[in-house]
């Protein structure tokens, strides 16, 4: 199972770009990288998913280097409402087992005014 390592916490100011890096040194060939966001008293919410290079959607961008041993979630111009815990997950999208979906401790992002 590919284990992930993320910073426990990060602080940022409104309007800044935030980059959260996740290390996954033993990522497997079939593994995808998925990021979830969780607000207090809510369940995790899917943000973005990718396999290699760069993926962008209306919420964030995901940068994955060629060796895929790490990935960076980029949040453009954060606001106070982006304060949340962000989880990096790694696993086989199509044939992985549900029990392998591990959220880890996540990164607590706090956006300051």
């Amino acid at each position, binding site marked *: 199972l590919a284990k992930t390592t993320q910073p426990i916490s990060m602080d940022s100011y409104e309007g800044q770009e935030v980059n959260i890096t996740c290390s996954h040194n033993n990522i497997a060939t079939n593994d995808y990288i998925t990021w979830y966001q969780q607000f207090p008293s*809510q369940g*995790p919410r899917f943000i973005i998913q990718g396999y290699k290079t760069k993926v962008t959607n209306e919420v964030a961008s995901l940068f994955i280097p060629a060796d895929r041993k790490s990935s960076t979630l980029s949040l453009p111009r954060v606001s106070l409402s982006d304060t949340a815990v962000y989880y990096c997950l790694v*696993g086989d*999208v199509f044939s992985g087992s549900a029990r392998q979906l591990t959220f880890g401790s996540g990164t607590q992002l706090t956006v300051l005014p």
Partner: protein
Amino acid sequence: EAGVTQFPSHSVIEKGQTVTLRCDPISGHDNLYWYRRVMGKEIKFLLHFVKESKQDESGMPNNRFLAERTGGTYSTLKVQPAELEDSGVYFCASSSGTGPYEKLFFGSGTQLSVL
């Protein structure tokens, strides 16, 4: 489109009592998952339904936990009898994909407190 709905949002019971949690997945989603976070620890997998069948229940902690999914629609998770260590937040998620790492839609969870 309605999201994943969980009921109740909070439940406070005494040790030894029975509690039943309910999850209504997004309509048409064949995959339904139960997760929980206990004692502020990490979110852990409990089990996975595909329609009405249990695909994987390896995360269920013991036989005090019973999950069902009637007709492949809503699901219930019963804890009987509840113990103090069962306190935590129970999340339900659903997806239409073929694998667990595809996009999951989570409910807001049920906060269970066993006193």
